[in-house]
């Protein structure tokens, strides 16, 4: 709430079409500042064994908005992302202090079912990782896990998911061919479809376009803008202009701490901290 109020004042001054510090111009988009908070991390510390990877991250992530995490390599942004669906659990020696609440429920409470959590909080990885199965089986993998066996229902889910991830037209005639035959960009959109098929509310994206060519990247970005209407998206990116293009909020991480967090248009035109400005303008990292 604090952030929203603070940004109220600056919104008037920053016009659409203003050049951002990272280059490119701000694009017009729907106002999301009044959306409710979906994810709330409070004083979150994260350790790998004795190494502290995150220092007291407190952050409110809005529903149906795109929040970008930026910062130099090793700054903790991916680590933070992976605390949101507890993917860090799989790393031996990883533990956290503080809390992460989704819809008010602490996801690190002992009673939380991690499998159910990960259905609600989907994840798209840096390197596209389709299963070496058919396109259909890739998308149907999640629903099948969760007990859907009816062919007609599965077909429906697969079609819907592929449509939502803007790849249906390209693959509708060859659903039974191997996903490995798709191009990198298509594979990544298939992975997004695979996530959508389990009907998540939040989608985490870990540099989803960093391994793709510019055209595929543009398609992914367009897709993110589409998905934002129905999903809460948190995206880690190394590409400043991408963050400026797709996100509503931006958080700048450095050395495991969150340096600055606010509306993207503010961060990219008029950041409060000097470190943030240095990073965005490319004088650092």
């Amino acid at each position, binding site marked *: 709430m604090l952030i929203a109020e603070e940004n109220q004042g600056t919104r008037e001054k920053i016009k659409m079409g203003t050049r951002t510090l990272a280059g490119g111009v701000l694009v017009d988009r729907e106002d999301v500042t009044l959306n409710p908070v979906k994810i709330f991390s409070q004083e979150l510390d994260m350790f790998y064994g004795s190494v502290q990877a995150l220092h007291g991250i407190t952050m409110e992530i809005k529903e149906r908005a795109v929040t970008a995490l930026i910062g130099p390599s090793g700054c903790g942004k991916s680590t933070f992302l992976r605390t949101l669906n507890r993917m860090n659990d*799989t790393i031996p020696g990883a533990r956290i202090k503080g809390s992460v609440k989704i819809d008010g429920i602490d996801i690190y409470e002992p009673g939380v079912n991690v*499998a159910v959590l990960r259905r609600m909080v*989907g994840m798209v990885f840096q*390197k596209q*990782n389709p299963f070496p199965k058919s396109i259909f089986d890739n998308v149907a993998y*999640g629903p099948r896990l969760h007990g859907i066996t009816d062919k007609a229902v599965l077909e429906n889910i697969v079609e819907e998911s592929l449509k939502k991830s803007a790849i249906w037209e390209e693959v509708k005639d060859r659903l039974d061919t191997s996903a490995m035959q798709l191009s990198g960009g298509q594979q990544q959109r298939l*992975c997004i479809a695979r996530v959508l098929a389990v009907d998540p509310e939040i989608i985490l994206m870990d540099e989803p376009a960093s391994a793709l060519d510019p055209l595929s990247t543009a398609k992914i970005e367009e897709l993110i803008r589409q998905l934002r209407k129905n999903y809460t998206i948190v995206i880690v990116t190394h590409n400043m202009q991408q963050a400026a293009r797709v996100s509503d909020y931006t958080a700048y991480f450095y050395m495991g701490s969150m340096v600055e967090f606010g509306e993207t248009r503010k961060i990219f035109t008029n950041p409060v901290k000097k470190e943030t400005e240095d990073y965005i303008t490319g004088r650092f990292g």
Partner: protein
Amino acid sequence: MDQALSLNLPKLTSRRILWNEIVSDVLVRFFALIPLSALAFIMYMIVRKGAGTITWHFLTQMPLNGMTEGGIFPCIFGTLAITLMMILMALPLGVAAAIYLTEFSGHGMFFRVIRAAVNNLAGVPSIVFGLFGVGFFILFVGRNLDHVLKTGMLFGQPCMLWAAATLAVLVLPVIIVSTEEALNAVPQSQRSASLALGATKWQTIWNVVLPQARGGILTGAILSISRGAGETAPILFTGCAYFLPRLPVVHLFGVIPIVNPFDQFMELSYHIFIMATQSLDAVKTLPIQYGTTLVLISLTFLLNLTAIVFRIHFRKKMGTVSI
């Protein structure tokens, strides 16, 4: 600066370097040729002396006249039966152990102890396995089973069951190591993808990891069969027989013939061993020895070939998994 650098560089036409190159090339080729020629020689001898013996009659008949004539059908039958039984015991156990080692154990003390045990097991001489089979399976497990179940001398004697179990222990390391390799070759990103979709660890192993490791596991299984099929020492005391006038077959409900795991059996490698050392007339039976050897070698060769075909097939089917 340039001059200083060029002083350290050898001349392009240095005779010494050229000479070293030629010598090492010839040496390496020569050493590589030694095992190749040894294999070629062995194969040549066996085929030349054994091929004449191989007839339909030889492959399908019982031995006759104190095993100086006739066929080797019971040996072929015994070898196939025992290796099948062996793999049925060893494969589930080995795969389960490998899954534990790669997916669950982490890399703590317990993991290292088990790993060391597996490696050491692979280095144990096969005759030790044979003695272990007698001591553990027949005298300890078998006799105690008989005692508890009141089955007289059903379990506590050498038979196909214990011979297969002994062979299974022998090939366990082969299966564990090859399965581990196959599981480790499945990229971590595949597991992450599955877990992130809300799959449990076991669902991930069952639906994603094992299907992708299938080719490697099968290859390991077939290689272990070909290893087990050729072993003599482990079955020496645990179940194989010098000569049996009948096949180790029992009729279920009096009609359906099945392999009797409580019977003794004849086996190819053991047959070669006794024909060469304890036959009534070792010279007269030379053709039978060569013929049996050829059959055994062909069988293992066929199994290895199957392993290769499987590997290629699965590699093609899975497509290339990006790592």
